[in-house]
């Protein structure tokens, strides 16, 4: 058979395989999500029952941890792939609520976009010690280190 057609068939097979792979995983993730949500619903219902029993129990505000940081906006920078990356961290009620990349003049577009996914990890963990983004190691390391630098600036007892 002609090599041209063989190549086309191969390509279609690969695309098909990726599609099936993604679908399978998506279904698995969905199933897990459903299981998790129903478990949560269950425990929330239980809690609600408890609350109803002790109607006059005062609501507490969850776990208030003494924070190391002073509220405000802080900048920090560190070396990325092609130069300095500067970020701005917003601290509100002692925790990081926002992380913005202020400038990254020498990073490449697609890499920076990939690396930016580290931002939500940092916000979720409330810490700059998270894993870097594979494939965009240098840029994401830059964002992480810049955040660390900014958090240093936000520390309460910096002299």
């Amino acid at each position, binding site marked *: 058979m*002609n*090599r*041209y*057609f063989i*190549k*086309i068939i*191969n*390509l279609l097979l690969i695309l098909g395989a*990726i599609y099936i*792979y*993604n679908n399978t*995983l*998506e279904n698995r*993730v969905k199933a897990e999500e459903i299981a998790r949500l129903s478990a949560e619903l269950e425990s929330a219902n239980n809690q609600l029952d408890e609350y109803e029993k002790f109607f006059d129990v005062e609501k507490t505000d969850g776990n208030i941890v003494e924070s190391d940081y002073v509220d405000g906006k802080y900048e920090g920078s560190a*070396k990325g*792939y*092609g*130069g300095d990356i500067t970020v701005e961290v917003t601290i509100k009620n002692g925790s990081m609520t926002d992380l913005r990349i202020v400038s990254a003049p*020498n990073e*490449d*577009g*697609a*890499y920076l*976009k*990939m690396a930016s996914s580290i931002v939500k990890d940092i916000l979720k963990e409330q810490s700059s010690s998270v894993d870097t983004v*594979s*494939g*965009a*190691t*240098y840029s994401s390391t830059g964002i992480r280190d810049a955040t660390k630098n900014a958090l240093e600036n936000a520390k309460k007892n910096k002299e």
Partner: protein
Amino acid sequence: MKEMTPLKKRKIHAGVRAGIQLMFFILMPSAFTTAFAGVKYIFVQLGNREPIEFNAFIKVLSVLLVYTAVFGRFFCGYACAFGSLGDAVRALYMSICKKMKKKPVAINETMNKLFIYVKYLVLLMIVFVSYKGMATSTKGMSPWDVFSMLRAGNIEMGAYIIGTVLLVLILIGMAICERFFCRFLCPMGAVFTLIPSIPYLSLRRTRTNCINGCSACKRVCPCNIELSDVSSIEISGECIQCGKCRGICPKQNVKRTLVPQNFELCFTIIRAAILVAILIWAGL
């Protein structure tokens, strides 16, 4: 308009090509690494049993592959920063040889035929490393990283020894043998080679029209390709669309079926413009 001599035409084409290469080198020097990062990403995700998202890397990769399926490896011939770098080193070497009146070194045919498969090994190796999640431990070993960093002006990070040594070796190879890296080693080139491209937009020859015993097109080809006959829709995946074979043929026998002969220059510029547009769209 007066008919130009073939030599003059060739010079114009070479000039246009160098200009386009320079433009891409300045504007989009990271296209090839980004696309390859897409390939690696796919295997990292497979290794982690995680879904393959349509992210920035995959977008650039798909755009380039679709483009290659239409126009052939025009990206390699005109837009890849690494290929252009190789061409520059090669041009330098040739001019030095000329000045010193030395014959440039030529490499042997049978080696050529075997070595073009090495790039698949390179591809398999990198894909395996990504799949196993060992990519971070190979940090600093990629000559591409070193090249990109030097280009981005990050000299400090150019201190990766293995990557730097490999880069220097590759550049020496590129000087001695045109497109050495592209033909034998480039993993992205291996991916491109596997993409089917529309034969009617690529160069083929009418074999029956050829001068007996002539092999000018093959000798001038940086990839040493035997052009296909117009009766065959199978064109070589190694062809980087440089157009040198077309310029050299004494009988104007190398043509694109869908593009008129005197439209070639326009076609080149159109292809380059489309490539710029889709790469910008893909976020580069």
